[in-house]
């Protein structure tokens, strides 16, 4: 082999020839299949990236399901809290009725009605779970936001039983004295505040998860189109496309809406 010496010119021609024959084979396959990248050998980076994109889209899809379940769980807890709030309000009504009468018999009846409400609150709290997780019954909820689980939202649970967070005790002395009724009235006031703050933290968690869910949905969509397009990539064509897009975007409404969004943002201070 060593006695064959190729001049630079011959070498260049040879290279050209090899490339041409490669191109011909490529073109034939493309004509046959209609795709520019058919196997990993045509354009390894694009081929595997495209595959990666499809895999990622699937990963994200399963995350979306988990987010959906998470949202249901939070909503179940939220419904539980609003029902419990209604019960607490009817208990308050009983208390104020008792405060308006001096008849001990009436008071005793009201007190027993009040006592009957308490186990109902406990039952409601026990039934506010979804898919085995009850945020009102001490089960924390962890929702994973991305596929490598580096981003998570943990929704802390509460314990909404009358013995625990709600802190309401049964009626004392059948509400015989005014002080006995006052104890219940004070407890109920505190309970309502607790419930309100619990509902607030749930709804802020809910909106965080919903924002992420919307974003992930849009992302999955785009990932799928991206995977399809990537196997058709060609850098000359991309350059031309990019220049065309640049011109087109200058005339599009997106540019206008970006500008108006920037005007409402702190960035306007920087103009």
């Amino acid at each position, binding site marked *: 082999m060593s006695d064959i010496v190729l001049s630079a010119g011959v070498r260049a021609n040879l290279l050209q020839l090899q490339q041409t024959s490669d191109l011909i084979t490529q073109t034939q396959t493309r004509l046959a299949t209609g795709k520019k990248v058919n196997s990993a050998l045509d354009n390894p980076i694009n081929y595997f990236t495209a595959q990666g*994109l499809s895999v990622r889209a699937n990963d994200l899809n399963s995350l979306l399901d988990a987010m959906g379940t998470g949202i249901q769980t939070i909503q179940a807890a939220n419904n539980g809290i609003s029902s419990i709030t209604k019960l607490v309000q009817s208990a308050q009504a009983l208390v104020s009725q008792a405060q308006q009468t001096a008849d001990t018999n009436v008071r005793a009846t009201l007190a027993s009605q009040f006592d009957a409400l308490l186990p109902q609150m406990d039952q409601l709290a026990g039934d506010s779970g979804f898919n085995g997780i009850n945020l009102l019954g001490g089960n924390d909820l962890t929702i994973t936001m991305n596929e490598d689980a580096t981003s998570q939202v943990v929704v802390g649970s509460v314990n909404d039983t009358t013995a625990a967070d709600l802190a309401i005790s049964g009626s004392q002395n059948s509400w015989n004295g005014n002080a006995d009724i006052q104890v219940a009235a004070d407890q109920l006031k505190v309970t309502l505040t607790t419930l309100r703050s619990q509902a607030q933290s749930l709804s802020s968690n809910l909106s965080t998860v919903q*924002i992420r869910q919307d*974003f992930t949905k849009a992302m999955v969509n785009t990932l799928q*189109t*991206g995977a399809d397009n990537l196997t058709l990539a060609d*850098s*000359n064509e*991309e350059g031309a496309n990019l*220049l065309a897009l640049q011109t087109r975007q200058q005339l599009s409404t997106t540019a206008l809406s970006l500008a108006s969004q920037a005007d409402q943002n*702190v960035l306007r201070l920087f103009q």
Partner: protein
Amino acid sequence: MGLKVELKAGERFILGDCLVTNGDQRTRLLIEGDAPLLREKDIMTTAQANTPAKRIYLAVQLMYTARDPRLHHDTYFILMRELVQAVPSAWPHIVAVSNNILAGEMYKALKSAKALIAYEKEILDHATRDTSIRRGRQTDRKSA
């Protein structure tokens, strides 16, 4: 651990909802907490954002500095979809940006958007260069 910012005379940066301008001497600040912080050199104005990737950067920047990032998600996705259709090979960069947004790490998302701008510049340079140079670029094989 806070963030150390060193400012030249007259240099400006955005901190939360405010624009902070340095006086006439060098300053070193230590900032703690998690309000959005953007240095002058990282800020893209609407006038500067004249290419598809720069517009994406602007959208991410708007999300970063906004109280409610949701308002800008739609714009972001429109821009992103347009860019992906034109330049599918920019995908790894776009995925990095989106992933950071998804993880709520907006500053990192801005960093990845910067990488996207660099990649776009590469392609644009390639496209605007003389066509004869481009012809020979099909494969970078060594000779036999």
